[in-house]
């Protein structure tokens, strides 16, 4: 089995271990489980971004907004219709996917950061709609020349203050423990990963890569770039929506202020550092940044002691506040300069070097 295959299979192996260790879960500290669950949730969204950016070469600055669509869809379905989480989650993915499709429409005519701008618009417009659906209703009324008069109002979305969301229920038991969250997220991550792998290695995936690497050449092979870009947008937002649904039901509270551009950018950074265009990239990137954040938080009390002594002009309270973006920015910069293909590529290179050594023994 080649290094490529190996690096793509290890997360599955890990997931397997995750399930096998099920009885031992209680021995693990809750903190660790929560960290893993949070890594998993973010990784799902970043996997979607990977399909769009890594495999299709299209930039999105609106991933957090698509997460938001998923979170709200699932929350509203659960609240208004009492739909089970297990149905509302895929529906949330679908809804987010359709909205993603909508914002992917400009990809017909524009590329590169023009497209990034369209997704930036999503990052502003979607929260606007969620905060005040009645405005969208008015707009729809105008656009249809008064033929349609939707009666949406902000009681549906909770307006600026957001919504409480019920916890998922499975076979009559409420999944509100960290352990249940961890297992649910793990299961969804595994499925999301398998889907991602299947897409990438089959017809659609090859078409996406063909578009990424050379759009003209792809067209000459009979691939319609627009159709596939839209599919990529759909998939990307679908993954985001699933992540959103998980987030909403396990956090049990969502608010329109929680899905920021900063979070979209962070996800992009995680993907690039992890390795865009590599199946394992999202898991690598999200894990690295979450672990780094965790470490920063843990060493913060020490830093608060040390840094102001070394740099007397720094206020104690500014230490972790400035270190987080500083370290995120620096890490991203160093990767862009020295390893622009990301961690997954580095791992693959190492594996290749290792294999090259073996016969010489």
């Amino acid at each position, binding site marked *: 089995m*080649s290094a490529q295959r190996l690096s793509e299979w290890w997360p599955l192996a890990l997931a397997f271990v995750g399930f096998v260790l099920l009885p031992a879960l209680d021995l693990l500290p809750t903190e660790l489980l929560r960290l893993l669950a949070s890594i998993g949730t973010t990784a799902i969204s970043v996997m979607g971004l990977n399909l769009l950016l890594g495999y299709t070469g299209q930039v999105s600055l609106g991933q957090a907004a698509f997460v938001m669509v998923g979170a709200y869809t699932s929350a509203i379905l659960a609240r208004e219709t009492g739909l089970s989480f297990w149905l509302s989650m895929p529906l949330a993915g679908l809804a987010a996917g359709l909205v993603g499709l909508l914002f992917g429409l400009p990809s017909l005519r524009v590329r590169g950061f023009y497209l990034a701008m369209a997704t930036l618009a999503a990052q502003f417009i979607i929260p606007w709609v969620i905060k005040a659906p009645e405005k969208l209703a008015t707009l729809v009324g105008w656009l249809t020349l008064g033929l349609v008069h939707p009666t949406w109002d902000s009681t549906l979305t909770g307006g600026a203050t957001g919504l409480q969301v019920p916890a998922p229920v499975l076979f009559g038991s409420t999944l509100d423990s960290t352990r249940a969250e961890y297992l649910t997220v793990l299961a969804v991550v595994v499925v999301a990963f398998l*889907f991602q792998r*299947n*897409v990438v*290695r*089959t*017809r*659609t*995936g*090859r*078409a996406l*890569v*063909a578009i990424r*690497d*050379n759009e*003209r*050449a*792809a*067209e*000459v*092979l*009979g*691939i*319609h*770039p627009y159709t596939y870009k839209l*599919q990529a947008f*759909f*998939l990307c937002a679908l993954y985001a929506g699933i992540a959103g649904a998980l987030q909403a039901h396990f956090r049990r509270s969502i608010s329109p202020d929680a899905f920021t551009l900063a979070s979209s950018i962070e996800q992009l950074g995680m993907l690039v550092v992890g390795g865009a*265009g590599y199946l394992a990239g999202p898991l690598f990137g999200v894990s690295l940044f979450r672990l780094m954040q965790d470490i920063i938080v843990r060493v913060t009390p020490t830093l608060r002691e040390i840094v102001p002594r070394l740099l007397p002009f720094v206020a104690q309270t500014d230490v972790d506040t400035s270190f987080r973006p500083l370290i995120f920015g620096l890490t991203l910069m160093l990767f862009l300069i020295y390893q622009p293909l990301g961690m997954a590529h580095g791992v693959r290179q190492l594996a290749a070097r290792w294999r090259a050594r073996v016969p010489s023994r």
Partner: protein
Amino acid sequence: MSPSPLLTVSNVSLMFGGVRALNDVSLEVQPGEITALIGPNGAGKSSLLNCISGLYRPTQGSIQFHSARGSQEITTTPTHQIAALGIARTFQTPALYPGLSTLDNILTARHIHMRQGLLSGLLYVGPARREEEAHRARAEEILGFLDLKHLANTPAGALSYGHRKQVDLGRALALEPELLLVDEPMAGLHQEERETLTRYLLELHFGRKVPIILVEHDIQLVMEIADHVVVLDFGSKIADGPAEEVQRDAAVIAAYLGEETH
């Protein structure tokens, strides 16, 4: 001339801003023949090829493709649909997908022959899996034809230039084209690689009867293998006919061969 050409180019002109890249060019391509397009640099050979494969839209004129499934105007047809009609092409600089393996590069060209969509791809069970495997076999067959089986799993980015040209050809073949456009296949190759590639072209021509439009600088090669030669100069057609005939054409000698030999 045969009464039923495969491709008819009628009075095609192409403007780039104020520059006239093609000027009222007409030609016909017969089934089963190798048609060569020659001319000095900037004569409009590649532009014409791009018009046929849909990458450029002619400013004037029309292009018709008469396939087994009937005649069709393809002047304004989107590129990917032209490919689906059965017109494949290679590029002067092979435009492979460096991140994909050689086999996957070939498989990419099976796109139009495959049916599975996003959903079945996601699940990858049953028919989707069977289809994938069938086409994989077909791609391996093409690699076999090009003697590249040993490179099937190598990323295309790691191939030599000569191999890349071969894979590019293989990818065009994987479309199972009714017409193959080959853009300067010999450019940048060693003598040995040229001979290999020529062999494949001839094999395609004689073995599989694939009609080819060949853009090539190597006059000798063109005269050896082309059935029909079209000469362009400054975007206009200056000669059109069987190789031997064109070779003797005074205008061609003046415009092109003369230039080549001095």
